[in-house]
């Protein structure tokens, strides 16, 4: 074969090979699918924002789609743990704020510090962002910081002859009067008093905070045996032993009972607002929201967004683009407008949105109050053992109610058990 012919053939082959490579590469980009698992795919508020922001991202990145998959909240941590353990994590990692430490501890999450430093959002004043910093690294960006609110049934309050409570004494008095007026068909308050230690701990915390206590001090040392926590436990016990709440009911069922008009007052997060739309028309106008009557509302980061450390670089870039988009001023404002909840980015609650959704002023006041007090559901010092901590406190608090035990002795036992847990 003449040499020029051979060279031509080789050149043609190489051209063909490069062309096919290029086609394959472009197809690969065209087929890029970012896996995003969440428990917020079909709720009444967050899902609307997620759908909109996912669509905007896909439009801005032709050829990239987001596979937005529902995993029920109860199974979420287990599912994520299995996915990470099997080296098949989702591309976009959505976690509750109290569970990401277990993932960070395994070095499964990317340190977002360098990404933020390069071209990330300005996190100054970003509500609840402190929770994402752990052992000198930033593992996530907080998507929601909340302050607990008082949701109340105005008709039941009126029927009992009481006003909206503004402190513990009024709250207790209203609960007693509404329970008495309910005659067994409705209760003054609704508490989560059954399985589900995380929710139990959060609701118990409302009483503890109001009494001026907290689970740990700033250094992470347990402070459960302090008088203020003991007083909080006593109040928690009082609400149950006086039968002011239905017993053995889960938080989600309590919310449903509230929407059905069978619970007079419920301390809960702003996500409860979306559920009120489910109430029957004749009941809807009675269901209202006010600031929590506790001196300091329960507060905390709700959910965070993160990135797996094991992703290939080109996927990391895409995920970071997604994180930048959702934390941009426009989409943070949209979060407020579409979900009716506050976004962590300062200034996201604009006067225009506030005019449309005046209740957000109450949400903002509660969030500011909780943030100013530095409150979070997740006790410092137990970041990676939160579930065990919650289980111990829940079991001992349940025992206190069942056995009618002295809160002081219960607090001492809690203190002893969580101290042992921390030292193990």
């Amino acid at each position, binding site marked *: 074969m003449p040499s020029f012919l051979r060279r031509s053939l080789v050149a043609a082959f190489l051209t063909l090979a490069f062309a096919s490579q290029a086609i394959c590469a472009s197809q690969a980009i065209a087929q890029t699918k970012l896996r995003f698992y969440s428990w917020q795919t079909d709720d009444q508020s967050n899902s609307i924002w997620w759908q909109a922001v996912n669509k905007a991202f896909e439009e801005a990145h032709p050829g990239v789609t987001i596979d937005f998959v529902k995993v029920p909240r109860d199974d979420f941590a287990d599912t994520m743990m299995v996915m990470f353990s099997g080296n098949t994590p989702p591309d976009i990692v959505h976690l509750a704020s109290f569970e990401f430490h277990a993932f960070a501890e395994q070095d499964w999450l990317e340190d977002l510090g360098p990404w933020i430093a390069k071209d990330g959002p300005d996190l100054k004043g970003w509500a609840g962002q402190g929770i994402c910093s752990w052992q000198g690294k930033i593992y996530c960006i907080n998507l929601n910081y909340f302050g607990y609110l008082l949701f109340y049934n105005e008709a039941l309050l009126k029927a009992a002859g009481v006003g909206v409570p503004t402190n513990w004494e009024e709250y207790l008095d209203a609960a007693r009067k509404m329970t008495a007026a309910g005659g067994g068909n409705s209760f003054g308050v609704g508490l989560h008093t059954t399985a589900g230690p995380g929710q139990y701990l959060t609701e118990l915390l409302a009483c503890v905070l109001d009494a001026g206590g907290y689970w740990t001090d700033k250094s992470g040392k347990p402070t459960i045996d302090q008088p203020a926590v003991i007083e909080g436990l006593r109040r928690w016990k009082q609400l149950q032993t006086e039968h002011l709440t239905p017993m053995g009911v889960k938080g989600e069922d309590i919310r449903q009972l509230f929407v059905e008009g069978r619970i007079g007052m419920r301390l809960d997060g702003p996500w409860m607002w979306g559920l009120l739309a489910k109430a029957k028309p004749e009941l809807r106008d009675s269901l209202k929201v006010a600031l929590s009557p506790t001196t300091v509302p329960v507060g905390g980061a709700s959910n965070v967004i993160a990135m797996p450390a094991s992703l290939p670089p080109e996927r990391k870039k895409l995920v970071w683009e997604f994180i930048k988009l959702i934390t941009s001023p426009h989409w943070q404002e949209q979060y407020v407008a579409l979900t009716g909840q506050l976004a962590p980015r300062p200034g996201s609650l604009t006067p225009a949105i506030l005019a449309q959704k005046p209740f957000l002023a109450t949400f903002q006041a509660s969030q500011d109050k909780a943030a100013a007090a530095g409150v979070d559901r997740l006790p410092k010092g137990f970041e990676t053992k939160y579930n065990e901590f919650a289980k111990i406190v829940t079991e001992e608090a349940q025992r206190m109610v*069942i056995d009618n035990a002295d809160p002081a002795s219960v607090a001492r036992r809690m203190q002893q058990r969580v101290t042992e847990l921390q030292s193990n």
Partner: protein
Amino acid sequence: MTADRRPWSVLWRPSARRWLGALLMAPCAIMVLLLIVYPLAVALDLSFQKLRIMRVGAQRLPYTLDNYDRLLHSPDFWHAAGVSLAFVLVVTAGCFAVGLSAALLVNQSFPGRRIARLLVALPWAVPEVVAATIWAWMFDGSFGLINWLLLQSGLVQAPIAWLSQPGEAFIVCAAALIWSGYPFVAVMALAGLQAIPPALYEAAQIDGAHAGQRFRYVTLPALRPVCMIALVLVVLRVVRDFATVFVISGGGPVGATRSLAIYTYEQAFSFYNIGYAAAIGLVTLALCAVFSGAVVRRSTEGGLA
């Protein structure tokens, strides 16, 4: 005679019979290895490592007996073992009492017997989680059907906090397990009853045995082999049950219904102590194997096999 030249024909020779047997058994053996032996080997491996979270491809941690040492000294483990034992005793007794009674009933001739047999087996057909959810709703302390019935009938003056009190929660879980478990005993016992030759009853009657004596000396001995098998399966079902108790009570309150299955799940998926959870699982397996072995041996001695 022309020799068969096909290569596998050699397997049909009497001298190669054992190889043929091995070959025929191979697919089944491979499945057993994959589905039972391999996971068991992984669990055994994990149980000797002080591992919080498992990760595919991660370096193995040094072997240690720490998990077993912790287990033996853990009050929580012994509490869970006690709860499991209590469930086994109560639920097994309940399943046999209700199941045998139901089998004896539907073994009689009466109009509608076919429908009665279907009804007896019905709980078996209801998915575990669905049944457990219904039980949880029925026994809701504030708005449940059972409390409403009790209050309406005047049997109680105040609602019973079924799922907030340790004893009551245990009773509800045990009742749900009996409800879903008795049909198996009933079906097994019914099959056993139908296999008893009528001549035995006739002979006993001629000898002057009354109904109680016929049950004691004819029915029960004849049902013994079936009951022993049912006993093993019911006990294993109760020990490994997770869904029913978890949905109804979540293992609470104050751990009153936290069985070994729930304790294992809690350690593995709530507290991320995979190594410790594997150790609990293996000890549970060993206890079940010892129990099953003892019952099967006793059955064999009694002439079952």
